[in-house]
């Protein structure tokens, strides 16, 4: 195996329990987003667009759909000789087997994978956010700083800082303090959970951490505080672009709606770093004679005979005659039958709203209505 400069480890094993019904049967990174994409597409596309050709995807929770979606990685041009996408689920050894117990533990259990590729640097990512980032720039900064660890950060409003892991730095971007959800933040630089480690330091730190019985084997909780305490060279890399976690129903809905409009903050049409996906081959969508589509994203395979306003219609969605869909996200294969009215809702994959049913409320104080995958909503439900 030839030596690699930088490989990525993508943590994709979490349940995503805050997405509720949307992740009851499918891992969060495989949840549909933005019409034709799945959440992991954004991170994988960032890797491909940053020139990273070796990505280990660590999976655990309900992995089949995610594994099937990743396939050989060819959808992201990551079917590379001597690299590409490798799916890394928990496995058994002669000593037994164990689930991934924390973010650091998941990587520790795959140190063989890292050692096989023998990289100089390891990029640690998670597949649960919407952003477009050139990891190459972060890597260049890491190399220039002769850092052991570089953490991508973004400035957040001061009033929100106590919700994040906050990093305090000196004038040279070197980290002096890390506080998880500080009550009185002295910095507004929030960790994005994106790390570049020098590989040798990462391997040493993880092997030590594995032996520490008091550790919870978490990057934020254990590895970073310890490295800081030891006086290691930890730096921040400031990111000024758009970054949104899509891990809750509210943020999923809000972030989806943010893709609409004339000048969205995250533009899926941006051509310099295209978002790639493993989409199914479906015909162009059809708008019927009485169909009306206003301020929407509409994917291949859709059929719109009714009205869709300010909504996202994913692949193969059907909106029947006289049905109305507003401020909603319809995941692949969802059907809104004739005369039904769907407002501020997320319809899961292949969900059906029966004829004449009213679902959701315009009242933004109320929670977004969520219908799970394959669920049929009839009258009186």
């Amino acid at each position, binding site marked *: 195996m030839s030596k690699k400069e930088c490989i990525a480890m993508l943590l994709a094993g979490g349940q995503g329990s805050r997405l509720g019904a949307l992740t009851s049967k499918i891992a969060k990174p495989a949840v549909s987003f933005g019409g034709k994409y799945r959440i992991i597409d954004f991170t994988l596309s960032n890797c491909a667009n940053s020139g990273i050709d070796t990505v280990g995807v660590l999976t655990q929770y309900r992995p089949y759909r995610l594994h099937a979606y990743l396939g050989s990685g060819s*959808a992201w041009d990551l079917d590379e000789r001597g690299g590409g996408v490798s799916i890394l689920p928990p496995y058994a050894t002669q000593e037994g087997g164990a689930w991934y117990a924390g973010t650091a533990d998941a990587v520790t259990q795959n140190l063989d994978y890292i050692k096989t590729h023998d990289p100089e640097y390891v990029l640690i990512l998670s597949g649960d956010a919407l952003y477009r980032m050139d990891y190459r720039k972060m890597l260049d900064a890491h190399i220039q700083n002769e850092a052991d660890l570089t953490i991508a950060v973004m400035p957040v409003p001061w009033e929100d800082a106590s919700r994040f892991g906050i990093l305090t730095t000196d004038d040279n971007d070197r980290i002096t303090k890390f506080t998880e959800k500080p009550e009185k933040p002295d910095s507004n630089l929030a960790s994005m959970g994106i790390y570049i480690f020098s590989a040798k330091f990462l391997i040493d730190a993880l092997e030590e951490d594995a032996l520490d019985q008091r550790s919870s084997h978490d990057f934020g909780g254990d590895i970073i505080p310890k490295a800081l305490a030891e006086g290691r060279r930890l730096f921040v890399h400031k990111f000024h672009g758009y970054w949104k976690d899509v891990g809750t129903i509210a943020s999923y809905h809000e972030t989806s709606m943010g893709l609409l409009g004339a000048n969205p903050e995250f533009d899926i049409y941006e051509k310099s770093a295209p978002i790639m996906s493993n989409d199914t081959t479906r015909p162009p969508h059809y*708008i019927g004679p009485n169909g009306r589509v206003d301020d929407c994203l509409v994917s291949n395979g859709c059929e719109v005979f009714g009205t869709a306003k300010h909504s996202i219609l994913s692949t193969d969605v059907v909106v029947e005659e006289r049905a109305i869909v507003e401020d909603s996200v319809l995941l692949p294969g969802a059907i809104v039958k004739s005369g039904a009215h769907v407002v501020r809702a997320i319809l899961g994959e292949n969900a059906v709203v029966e004829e004449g049913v009213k679902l959701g409320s315009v009242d933004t104080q109320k929670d977004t209505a969520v219908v799970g995958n394959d669920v049929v909503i009839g009258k009186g439900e």
Partner: protein
Amino acid sequence: MINNKAIGYITANYTALKQETLLESRPIASVPVMGRYRLIDFPLSNMANAGIKTVGLVMPGNYRSIIDHVGHGKDWGLDRKRGGLFPLPGNPYGTTKAGMRFLLRDIISNKTLFQRAKEPYVVLMGSNIIFNMDLNAIIEAHEASGVGITMVYVKAERDHEEACSLVIGDAGRVQKVNEGCKYGDNKFIDCFVINRELLLQIIDRYAAADYLDIFEAIAADFSRIDVCSYEFKGLAVGMFDQETYYQRSMEMLDPVINNQLFRKDRPILTKAHDAPPAKYAAGSIACNSRISAGCEIMGTVRNSILSRGVVVESGANVVNSIIMQGVIIKSGARVENAIIDKNNVVPANTELRGTPDAILSVGKAPMA
């Protein structure tokens, strides 16, 4: 399932009699159809859906756009270690004669494909008549009947000068193949199954008549070869010139017709792209239209088919038209009864207007 009974052979070098705008920059086989597809997708997908893993593709002289589209066949599952997609040399001038889609000379010069195969049958298809068919049903019928050749036909719904018709006798035996096709005739849809050994015999026996279509060459020997027919009850749409291309495309706007071609159980596969979902601005209007990924609609689109990445600016109107990939229709422009080929920019407040009887066509523009 992997099909161990048949290999495929597709002729993509049919050349139209009329040299029209659409064909200035491409062979018929790679003419875009229904937004994201090209005609060649249909025979390739029918074969892929039947599990056929070895497909020879006979190329025209101007094959660039076909190679660009099919590559090594990955999108049809034809990037194989065993088998795969084999681009084959063909008569570069194509087979311009009406009704000729299976030039014997091309079959002879690609004998190696048939010699190397182990499968007992070969499915041969053209690329001008599109349909979605279960080829295994035909292969099974062919095998069960024990004949040499099975030709697939539909009952013609209209006159069709460029198609062939079959004269069918007792027990479905084909007695004769006629050039041209009238309403109600048995229209041959350029699809047949032949025993591979028989094909190799024909290659040797009729070598002297290599300038003919295979069915012309063997015309006198139909009864001896035992040529049978198979009626396809589904939709088969022939596209041989710009006029029929436009008319048939417009008919396919009807979802009932469209859904006969595009089925989830037998998908028509095509080259994958990374175009984002189509985007509709507030105040845009679209009706009875088929619109591809990557389109941005700010104006009005009616009764039209838009390929990938078309932009219709605010105040622009597109009516009864076929708009190819990457066309930009500027603010206030009007396009009606027209075919606008790739990469054109229709300037603001201009009109490009044909009539239902005389469709306006604008050729492919150079890349910006």
